[in-house]
């Protein structure tokens, strides 16, 4: 079966001037391949600066890759005429991170939702207005709020509006670039639940870009882990969390309960990610890897299957020591506490919707 969206060997580099001589190339995304099926959620996780947001903007066709291909339902998305690009844009939508920057401060919510429908000629204006009202209800807001401006909403509400805007053109795929990381924890839970409900109701697929493993574990079907511009491990969510086959993924998981992946806050990840302007020989994680061998600094490990659905870019994927029980699989840790919070939040949310 053709995947909904498939990207192969994407490369995106930027030139960085470094003083005398030729400017260096900074490889933000280096030979990345991912794909997502209809109605599924693929999470792309990694530290900030690993290139995951650039992958998002390449998939959205907001930036052109240096090389590589993107296919939507098997159709080449790199060679589209303006009509083709418009069709592509209707089918692939986005929700960004910052709720305060994601809406035009001068545009009423009504226009935010109606204009995209009219642009893509999905319906006429009276019908668009009806659909806008329905969208507001669908994301847990009310139709009366259509007349308001963005500044009259809270961060979580704005993120709901951004989701409604993405839904307004009935897309097949929404790329969510850290959609909840700027929100309070209780609001995060509500928005994550909303996304899950929408997927169940509309069959939309998500590519969920995040550094928050707890959310990813809760939401995603598959996970791709990025490090320094490359994918180092990819697997179905449960498999990845239970049986990580790359030292970097292990380090991330060990660090996860401390809410966010921050370089300085945890023990297992010492040292800095490599300078991405320097494409060194060997594994990029070698300098920080506790299991590093001579071979790792000499040749680059390819991303190869460990078993049927599990890919890892580590020479020693199958021989890594057994994982000790990871902290966030224990009951009572923050991740499971948060999942409980999602449930509670869901109930509260229906309550709130009635209040509004």
């Amino acid at each position, binding site marked *: 079966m053709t995947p909904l969206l498939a990207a192969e060997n994407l490369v995106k580099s930027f030139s960085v001037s470094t003083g005398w001589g030729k400017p260096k190339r900074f490889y933000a995304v280096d030979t990345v391949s991912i794909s997502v099926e209809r109605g599924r959620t693929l999470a792309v996780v990694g530290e900030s600066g690993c290139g995951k947001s650039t992958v998002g903007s390449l998939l959205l066709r907001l930036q052109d890759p240096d090389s590589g291909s993107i296919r939507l339902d098997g159709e080449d998305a790199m060679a589209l005429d303006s009509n083709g690009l418009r069709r592509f844009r209707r089918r*692939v*939508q986005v929700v960004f991170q910052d709720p305060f*920057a994601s809406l035009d401060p*001068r545009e009423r919510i009504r226009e935010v939702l109606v204009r*995209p429908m009219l642009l893509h000629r999905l319906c006429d204006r009276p019908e668009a207005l009806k659909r806008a009202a329905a969208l507001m209800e669908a994301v847990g807001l009310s139709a009366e709020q259509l007349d308001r401006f963005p500044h009259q909403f809270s961060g979580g509400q704005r993120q709901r509006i951004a989701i409604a*805007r*993405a839904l307004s053109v009935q897309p097949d795929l929404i790329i969510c670039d850290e959609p909840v990381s700027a929100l309070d924890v209780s609001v995060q839970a509500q928005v994550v639940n909303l996304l899950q409900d929408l997927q169940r109701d509309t069959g939309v697929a998500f590519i969920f870009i995040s550094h928050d493993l707890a959310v990813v574990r809760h939401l995603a079907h598959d996970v791709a882990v990025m490090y320094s511009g490359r994918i180092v491990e990819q697997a179905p969510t449960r498999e990845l969390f239970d049986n990580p086959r790359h030292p970097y993924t292990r380090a991330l998981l060990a660090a996860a309960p401390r809410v966010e992946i921050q370089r300085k806050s945890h023990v297992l990840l010492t040292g800095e990610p490599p300078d991405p302007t320097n494409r060194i020989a060997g594994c990029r994680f070698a300098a920080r890897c506790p299991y590093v061998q001579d071979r790792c600094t000499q040749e680059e490990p390819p991303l190869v299957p460990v078993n049927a659905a599990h890919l890892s870019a580590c020479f020693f994927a199958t021989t890594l020591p057994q994982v000790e029980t990871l902290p966030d699989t224990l009951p009572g840790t923050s991740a499971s506490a948060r999942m409980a919070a999602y449930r509670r939040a869901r109930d509260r949310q229906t309550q709130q919707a009635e209040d509004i």
Partner: protein
Amino acid sequence: MTTAPASHSLIRRLVEDSRSAFGMALVSILVLAAVFGPVLSSYAPDAADFMATLAPPSADHFLGTDDLGRDVLSRILSGARVSLLVGVISVGGAVLFGLPIGLVAGYLGGRTDAVLMRCMDVLLAFPGILLALGITAALGASLTNTIIAIAVINTPTIARVTRAQTMLVSSLDYVKANRALGFSNLTIMTRSVLPNALSPVLVQASLLLASSIITESYLSFLGLGVQPPTPTWGSMLRDAISFIDQATWLAWFPGAAIFLTVLGFNIFGDGLRDRLDPRD
């Protein structure tokens, strides 16, 4: 040194409010003079009266007369019209050209940006008055050419401010979201970027009004701006030099008119900036 007492900030606000009010008043007086000038004065601005040449200010002629016996007050009122006309149209022209240039350069970036901004740099590489002089010398001295010259020297300033603001706004998520929704560049530039990039441009335009009025008076003073018999404040001062030892009022009043007008626009622009730009 650190925290000013409450009374200080109160004084400060009062001073600033009264300052803005003063600026508004000066600008309003100029506009009223330009609109109602002919009604207010009992003499035509170019009516010579050889019985009353170089007459000092009196009940008949509030601000005196010049060497041809023309009423200085009527001429100043009439000059207000020229100043305002040149100021508003030339700044308007600069916005008309500079705004789209800055918008396109800032939004598209890359090579388009480089080419457009290089051109603006060349215009900026001339000291303003000198470029205006060159243009009026080339096109001939007249009202229209004065307006064109001043519009040209203001265009790069408007383009730069617009470009900087456009780049800022274009990087925001809602612009990217609109691109992802499939809106055309033109729609995004005019509907999403421009309205949110406009306020610093307006502040700059209001400050340019002041400098444009000064430049116009420089050009007329040099005899390379608006030509006689149209009275302008600059050319009145030019004529005043010959009679400086006999008739000082000829130098005082037109100069004061320029000074107060420009002061008014400068204060007005400053006030506008404080209102629209909370960072400052």
